[in-house]
């Protein structure tokens, strides 16, 4: 960043699917010892007219109806929307006006993520917002909260002026990362770096351990990070290596983006409890149908029951009581219970089955007509997704020797034990040592804290995890083959950014030139791969296995007509850069040097290839 005011704080922001958190620490001056990382208590509306400070800001946005008047915050008397706890509870009363899981929409490959589409399925009079706008509003709220709690009006202490590390799922593709930074820049963040969430969790562990972590991690150690949050599941594998006598950490694999989390589990338990309630009511001759409000209350109660029954305690049953919506409590309250056996069979065996290392998630064929909703995971078996990550297509699967858990769901002892048992059985079958669990991180706040710790570490000599991009990226070029009716023209995938490309580096692809029509938007198909590790920039693939390359949203370029004749085809080479922020930048460099001249800055002419602009066709 250019000559701006030096930041005072290192800030870590966990912009989660269900919760957002912010941690910070003062950047130490020369020779000063770093201070511990603190978590910001975020003032937020928790009920109508009531503001409370909490360390978690639920990632919900409530767009109020005009009859409600302003949703007053201490710093804004005229606000027409709310984020946080009140927004979440309004999701029960007035669901059509609440945006939830915005982050999952942000990485949805087949929608226009800058279009005002949320809340999904809301009536026309709701002023809809885009996934990017929603993320922006969460960040803006943090900025305002920060201003009230920390900066207190001092402009050089404003959040945007600090050194900010914003976390994203390891499985976020280039476009989702780009859109996240777009929201952050809109919020005025000047000094921004993206960090993968599982890495942030490991940084939190490293920083909590101080120097003693070296006792737990030796060269050759394979660390598996399992992050199961409210809405998503994210895995990463980080390997400890010894280079020139120094220990280094390198992220070697990340899992697919799995829309599966604690909310799914609570829904299942709520469903079981509902069936019991209905059966009991029918047996008593009073048919029962739950309303929406009761169902949600049931889901909350189910979460509590899950945590109680899956923790170490001795309890075998957990009582559930759900009050009706009216003011009558006695007689209107429904009561049932969940047993340890029910929770164990539905949650532990349903979501974390003991499977062989060779197990793979089931893929159901999509039917022709799919509602344009979120692409939820088709297989709820978290351990099967995990086996798929560790097991390569050929050769021996990776054997983790250390496991680090993260995410609220992992608070349950029984679930941590099950994942450990599963990984241990894989290790035993492969005659490898059993993995050891790394303890001691706060499962809800580790990502934010770890991000702040990383913000401190990257300025000093702290341990850094290397890894680069988690995917290789390819531009699809349609070959010049004779047209055959019904057969699409063959596509060549040209690798523009190899897997593991590091921040601050770039690659030029000059061997294959792409033709761009002047004055028109030209679109290219775009692919990503998490498995092709040996391709380099410039590798071109004539054919590939469908599971190797995933098609992403297309990329587009418009070459302005200035200095050229509209309709002309100009050959361009491609430069791929991994920016310091951590996003992928693709630029086209026209090679018709004869007509050079209109480039930005007067030097070499370059035009940005836009990621993720429109829906996939």
């Amino acid at each position, binding site marked *: 960043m250019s000559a701006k005011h030096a930041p005072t704080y290192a800030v870590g922001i966990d912009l989660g699917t269900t919760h957002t958190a912010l941690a910070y620490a003062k950047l130490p001056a020369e020779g000063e010892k770093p201070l511990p990382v603190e978590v910001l208590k975020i*003032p937020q*509306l*928790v*009920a*109508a*007219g*009531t*503001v*409370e400070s909490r360390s978690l800001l639920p990632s919900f946005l409530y767009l109020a109806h005009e009859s409600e008047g302003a949703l*007053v*915050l*201490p710093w804004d*008397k005229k606000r027409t929307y709310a984020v946080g706890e009140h927004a979440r509870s309004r999701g029960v*009363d007035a669901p059509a006006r609440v945006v939830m899981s915005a982050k999952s929409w942000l990485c949805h490959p087949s929608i226009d993520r800058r279009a005002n589409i949320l809340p999904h399925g809301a009536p026309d009079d709701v002023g809809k917002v885009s996934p990017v706008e929603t993320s922006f509003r969460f960040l803006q709220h943090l900025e305002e909260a920060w201003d009230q709690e920390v900066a207190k009006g001092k402009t050089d202490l404003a959040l945007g002026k600090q050194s900010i590390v914003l976390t994203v799922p390891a499985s976020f593709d280039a476009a989702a990362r780009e859109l996240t930074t777009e929201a952050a820049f809109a919020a005025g963040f000047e000094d921004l770096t993206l960090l993968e969430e599982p890495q942030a969790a490991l940084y939190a562990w490293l920083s909590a351990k101080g120097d003693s972590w070296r006792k737990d991690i030796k060269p050759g150690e394979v660390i598996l990070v399992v992050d199961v949050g409210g809405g998503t599941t994210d895995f990463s594998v980080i390997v400890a290596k010894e280079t020139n006598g120094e220990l280094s950490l390198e992220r070697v694999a990340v899992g697919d983006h799995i829309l599966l989390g604690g909310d799914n589990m609570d829904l299942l338990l709520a469903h079981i409890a509902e069936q019991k309630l209905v059966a009991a009511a029918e047996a008593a001759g009073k048919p029962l149908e739950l309303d929406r409000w009761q169902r949600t209350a049931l889901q909350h109660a189910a979460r*509590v029951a899950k945590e109680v029954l899956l923790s170490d305690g001795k309890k075998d049953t957990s*009582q559930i*009581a*759900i*009050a009706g*919506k009216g*003011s*009558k*409590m*006695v*007689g*209107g*309250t*429904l*009561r049932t219970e969940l047993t340890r056996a029910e929770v164990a069979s539905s949650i532990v065996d349903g979501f974390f089955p003991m499977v062989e290392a060779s197990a793979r998630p089931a893929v159901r064929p999509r039917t022709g007509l799919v509602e344009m909703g979120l692409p939820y995971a088709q297989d709820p078996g978290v351990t099967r997704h995990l086996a798929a990550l560790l097991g390569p297509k050929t050769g021996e699967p990776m054997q983790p020797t250390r496991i680090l858990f993260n995410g609220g769901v992992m608070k349950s002892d029984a679930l941590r034990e099950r994942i450990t048992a599963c990984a241990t059985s894989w290790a035993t079958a492969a005659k490898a040592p059993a993995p050891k669990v790394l303890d001691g991180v706060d499962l809800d706040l580790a990502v934010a804290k770890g991000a702040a710790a990383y913000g401190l570490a990257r300025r000093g000599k702290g341990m850094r995890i290397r890894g680069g991009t988690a995917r290789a990226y390819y531009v699809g070029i349609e070959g010049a083959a004779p047209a055959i009716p019904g057969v699409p023209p063959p596509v060549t995938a040209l690798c523009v950014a190899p897997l593991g490309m590091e921040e601050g580096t770039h690659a030029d692809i000059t061997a294959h030139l792409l033709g761009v029509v002047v004055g028109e938007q030209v679109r290219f198909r775009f692919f990503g791969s998490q498995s092709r590790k040996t391709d380099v920039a410039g590798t071109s693939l004539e054919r590939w296995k469908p599971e190797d390359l995933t098609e992403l949203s297309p990329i587009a370029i418009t070459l302005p007509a200035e200095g050229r004749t509209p309709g002309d085809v100009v050959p361009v080479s491609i430069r791929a850069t991994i920016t310091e922020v951590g996003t992928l930048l693709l630029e086209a460099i026209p090679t018709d040097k004869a007509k050079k001249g209109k480039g930005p800055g007067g030097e070499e002419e370059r035009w940005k290839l836009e990621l993720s602009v429109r829906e996939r066709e």
Partner: protein
Amino acid sequence: MEPVPFVARLFLAWLVYFKVLFDGTFAAKVSALGKGRELAPIEEPKKLASRAKAKEEEEEKVEAKVEAKVEAKVEAKVEAKEPDFSSALQLLSLLQREGRLVDFLEEDIAGAADADIGAAARVVHDGCRKALREHVELVAIREEEEGVKLTLQEGFDAKSVKLTGNVQGKAPFTGSLRHKGWRAKKITLPTAVAGHDAAILAQAELEL
């Protein structure tokens, strides 16, 4: 003034109990309310006068004077302004929101079956406990188990320990601990935003 219903009084008493315990200024106001409002106009001036006269007589005169002054001051304040109940209302609306306490207390449970009351009590207990734990940091005044023998030395804090039963003689006092007591160490209430009517404990709801 409208009489307050019994249940609300019960609750108010509970609230005031805590507030008196840890809020010195509030305690002073309450004490002024009791003595001040009804009795003060008749008794206070007399007291003041008699004390002024008896300047040379009693040993406790200095103390008494100070006390009288404080009372007079507080009385003036209280009369000038209605007491601010907004934090009490906030706590009440918090307990209603989280645990439906007002709904429960306002309901007639005399004829209801114990099982139904039990089911409702679970909702109230779960929610109110969560709210209480989030907003009030409670500690036991005595850390000993209830039922154990305990000896209090001279100079023990009579505000936090109440002697019951055969109360006589001088310290040390030995007896068995009947109730460990509670002290609100810290209370954090939500901030009400401008224009919010704290008296609305729960909004009426109209489903469209």
